[in-house]
């Protein structure tokens, strides 16, 4: 056998392959090099910074991003210890942070940065970063280096902070802020939503939004989702939603589409504001407006009611002037109707003054007994007309009050009138006063129709339903009790209404502070009676009024009382007539054409003949400011239309008794 030949053949065959294997190896190496180049390009191209080190933690490679973030170039950094190039500290403590690359190298496993790590670049620039480091292991699993990948998270941190701020705003908002999917499933739920609707986030998230929608409004959700899907925004949509406890809430909704990064609508955000309070206020306003309208209608009716008998009375007097009894009866009837009309207007003006804090009390030391007596006088006609029995019980000792006698008498007069009105004919009314410490308690109780429990809270409201319920039964404006309350409170007291119900009578309880000093007593002088004849002294009186009827009727009355009169229709004519007529007294209207009463008074006062004349303003304006203005113009007195004859007489007597310019 050719052993050597076989071996030679084998050698020949084998060595023939060497070149081919060499070529294969070179090709493999080229591919490896190309792969490494691709890796290098990849590392250079990726957005993250990459640093690799050797087994001792010395920098071997930095990509461009790492160069930018550290401020070190590859050439400068190569061979340096990693902490020189990758200098990191804790954002808050400023202490050096654990270097994840060195940790990875030491432990042979992937390591990440702690939170709040800041990279300090070569030029001192600081950037918050995120990173991770992975060891490069050799074939035996030993770390021969480390790859550190990190990124600047400044923007992300900013976005996170902005998101956190936004979340905090959403969470702290008083409004309910809810997001939902296009299928109407609740996705987020803030504290405002929890407060408003009562459901916790855990209870609400994942539930359909119809959880909050009343059954009769379920169609709304379909409409809302429809519009949202079309990218529309729904603003201030007012509707009703249901809270967890079943309460119906008036809600103002603003619903906006939520879009994804591509702009597609993926859901909706809803901001819901509870407008229940506003709605109720609006409702209350509407109710007040409605009551005002009712009141105005009532006022028109009540003002017109006395006019018919007055007109009838005039006709009767004209036709039956020869029948002295009939004329007297008619005159009494007309007087009652006129008094009623005056009282209506006085009440209106008083309530307006109280409402606008323009009522002044003329306080003095008054005895409760006098006040009650005056009130009884006022109420007597009404009580007697329907045959009520009035029982009055006062403490044996005098009760002294710091009060406006007239106004306080008005309070009890109103209460007695009120009881008289709402008690069936032949009823019983009690007025009882008792001392309770430093207060006096005055109760006006009746056996009348009572007050329904539902009306009790509103009985002192102006034009209230409760009040109307009562007033409508007998007529009136329904402001009497409001006036009582306002006046009592102005006196530092309280008033309460109580009733066991309809048909069971009513009790009004007034509490007033009592003055301790019993020594002195005072009271207003009782009103002067109507003059029934020309008993008064004869005077020359000029009546100035732009209303001829008012002027002539007034002049007629004054003449009937024995005076000599003249009339004038405006200020200019008044000055002229005054100069000729030289009256003792001028009753001066204020609002007049050409020259008003103030100016006319000034002109008269400027004349030597006019200085001693008594000029009394006679006007529809009765507020304090009006009195002041008339006084400044030179008027000696101020009376409010329609004139109260006793008041006029009293004033004239005062003027005649003192200085003409100082009434």
């Amino acid at each position, binding site marked *: 056998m050719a052993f050597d030949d*076989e071996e030679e053949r*084998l050698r020949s065959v084998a060595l023939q392959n060497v070149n081919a294997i060499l070529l294969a190896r070179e090709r493999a190496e080229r591919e490896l090099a190309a792969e490494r180049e691709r890796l290098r390009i990849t590392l250079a191209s990726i957005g993250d910074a990459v640093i690799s080190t050797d087994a001792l933690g010395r920098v071997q490679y930095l990509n461009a991003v790492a160069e930018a973030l550290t401020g070190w170039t590859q050439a400068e950094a190569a061979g340096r210890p990693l902490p020189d190039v990758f200098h990191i500290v804790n954002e808050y403590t400023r202490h050096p942070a654990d270097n994840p690359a060195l940790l990875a190298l030491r432990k042979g496993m992937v390591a990440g940065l702690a939170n709040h790590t800041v990279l300090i670049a070569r030029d001192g620039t600081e950037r918050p970063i995120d990173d991770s480091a992975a060891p490069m292991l050799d074939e035996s699993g030993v770390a021969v280096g480390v790859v550190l990948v990190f990124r600047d998270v400044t923007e992300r941190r900013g976005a996170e902070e902005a998101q956190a701020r936004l979340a905090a705003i959403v969470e702290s908002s008083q409004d309910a802020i809810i997001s939902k999917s296009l299928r109407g499933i609740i996705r987020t739920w803030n504290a405002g939503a929890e407060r408003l609707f009562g459901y916790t986030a855990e209870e609400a998230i994942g539930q359909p939004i119809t959880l909050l929608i009343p059954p009769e409004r379920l169609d709304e959700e379909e409409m809302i989702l429809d519009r949202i899907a079309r990218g529309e925004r729904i603003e201030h949509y007012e509707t009703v939603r249901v809270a967890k406890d079943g309460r119906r809430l008036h809600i103002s909704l603003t619903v906006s589409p939520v879009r994804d990064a591509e702009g597609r609508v993926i859901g909706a955000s809803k901001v819901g504001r509870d407008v229940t309070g506003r709605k109720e206020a609006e409702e209350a306003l509407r109710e007040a407006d409605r009551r005002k309208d009712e009141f105005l209608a009532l006022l028109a009716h009540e003002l017109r009611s006395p006019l018919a008998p007055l007109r009838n009375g005039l006709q009767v007097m004209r036709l039956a002037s020869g029948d002295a009894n009939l004329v007297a009866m008619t005159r009494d009837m007309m007087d009652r109707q006129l008094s009623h009309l005056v009282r209506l207007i006085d009440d209106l003006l008083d309530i307006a003054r109280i409402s606008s804090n323009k009522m002044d009390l003329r306080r003095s030391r008054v005895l409760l007994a006098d006040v009650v007596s005056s009130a009884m006088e006022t109420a007597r006609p009404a009580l007697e007309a329907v045959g009520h029995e009035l029982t009055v019980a006062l403490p044996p000792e005098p009760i002294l009050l710091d009060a406006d006698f007239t106004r306080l008498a008005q309070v009890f007069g109103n209460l007695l009138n009120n009881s008289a009105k709402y008690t069936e004919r032949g009823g019983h009314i009690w007025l009882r006063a008792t001392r309770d410490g430093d207060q006096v308690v005055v109760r006006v109780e009746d056996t009348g129709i009572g007050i329904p429990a539902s009306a009790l809270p509103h009985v002192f409201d102006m034009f209230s339903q409760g009040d109307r319920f009562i007033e409508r039964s007998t007529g009136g404006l329904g402001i009497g009790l409001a006036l009582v309350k306002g006046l009592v409170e102005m006196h530092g007291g309280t008033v309460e209404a109580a009733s066991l119900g309809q048909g069971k009578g009513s009790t009004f309880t007034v509490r007033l502070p009592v003055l301790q000093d019993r020594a002195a007593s005072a009271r207003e002088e009782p009103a002067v009676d109507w003059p029934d004849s020309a008993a008064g002294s004869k005077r020359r009186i000029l009546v100035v009024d732009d209303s001829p009827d008012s002027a002539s009727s007034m002049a007629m009355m004054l003449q009937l009382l024995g005076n000599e009169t003249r009339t004038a229709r405006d200020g200019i004519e008044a000055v002229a007539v005054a100069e000729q007529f030289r009256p003792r007294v001028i009753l001066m209207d204020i609002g007049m054409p050409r020259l008003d009463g103030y100016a006319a008074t000034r002109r008269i006062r400027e004349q030597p003949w006019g200085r001693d004349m008594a000029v009394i303003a006679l006007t529809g304006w009765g507020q304090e400011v009006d009195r002041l203005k008339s006084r400044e113009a030179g008027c000696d007195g101020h009376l409010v239309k329609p004139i109260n004859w006793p008041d006029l007489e009293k004033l004239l007597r005062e003027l005649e008794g003192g200085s003409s310019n100082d009434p």
Partner: protein
Amino acid sequence: MIEAVAASGGLDPRLDALYEEAIRDTIERFEATGSPVITDGEQRKYHNFWTYCVQGLPNTAPDGFKIPFSAGHTRRMLRLTSGPFRYKQPADTYLDVALRYARKPVKQAVISPSALSLMYPDDEIPGYPREQFIEDLLREHETEMRRCLEKGAHNVQIDFTEGRLAVKIDPSGRLLHSFIDLNNIALSRFSEVDRRRIGVHTCPGGDLDSTHSADVDYADLLPALFALKAGSFYVALAGEKDRIRVLKIIREHRRRHQRVFVGVVAPIDPRVETPEEVRDRVLEAADYIPLEQLGTTDDCGFSPFCDDTSTSRDTAFAKIRARVLGTALAAERLGAG
């Protein structure tokens, strides 16, 4: 079985049942030895461990080069007659069967690319350049290896018996380094994790109780061998005349991460080693190789060529049992459990 193979040729489908039974029996007896890792005894590698994957290819001729053995006989390899080069029977097909029977981890042996590179003839094949053949060879080998790994082989062992032969036929080392390069190109295609499951076997050959390159000094082979990018090395040592010298060479050239399985029984020696003998060989090796990187193996396959009946199955399993017992004794002595 041997007679049937001899009578009909190893690739006759009618032999499948016999092969199956041989594999089942081998695995059963192998597992009975207590060996922690077993093989299928390479029962289906017809005709041999070298050409199993190309046996029966139509583009081969039986007149390839001859491997001369010290006993005076030769083994003739196949010659590639035309391209393209493809495996006919990759080893993972054997693994499929073995895994059906095995209850212990299975090691699968494959032939190295360098061994098969010798199929390309001295003269260029028209239309199929040598470079293309090398590429095809690498791809086929990689595919076979990858399939074995993926199918669950505990280890894949590359038979690199021609390494020592290369030194013999080209003492300059050029051929050896070329083989190392070729095998490393293939190994480079695997991950580090995969390579930890890949080992390389070297021996002086073993056929009919003789070798083809026992006279080649390991000192000329091992330094280059450990340059292979494999995780384990199965080094025939029991048959070496001066084991201490070889161990010293191993100690000097072994890489840190490489495990070395030293041969503690010699298939070409008809005598069955005693466990004590084995134990002493292990203790001897432990003086040079750290315990955590030391393992034991058989020097070589017991019948690399299918017609080799020089070692009976009983002897083979007795030797394996001796290896297992001896290794256990040594481990006990070394406190390695």
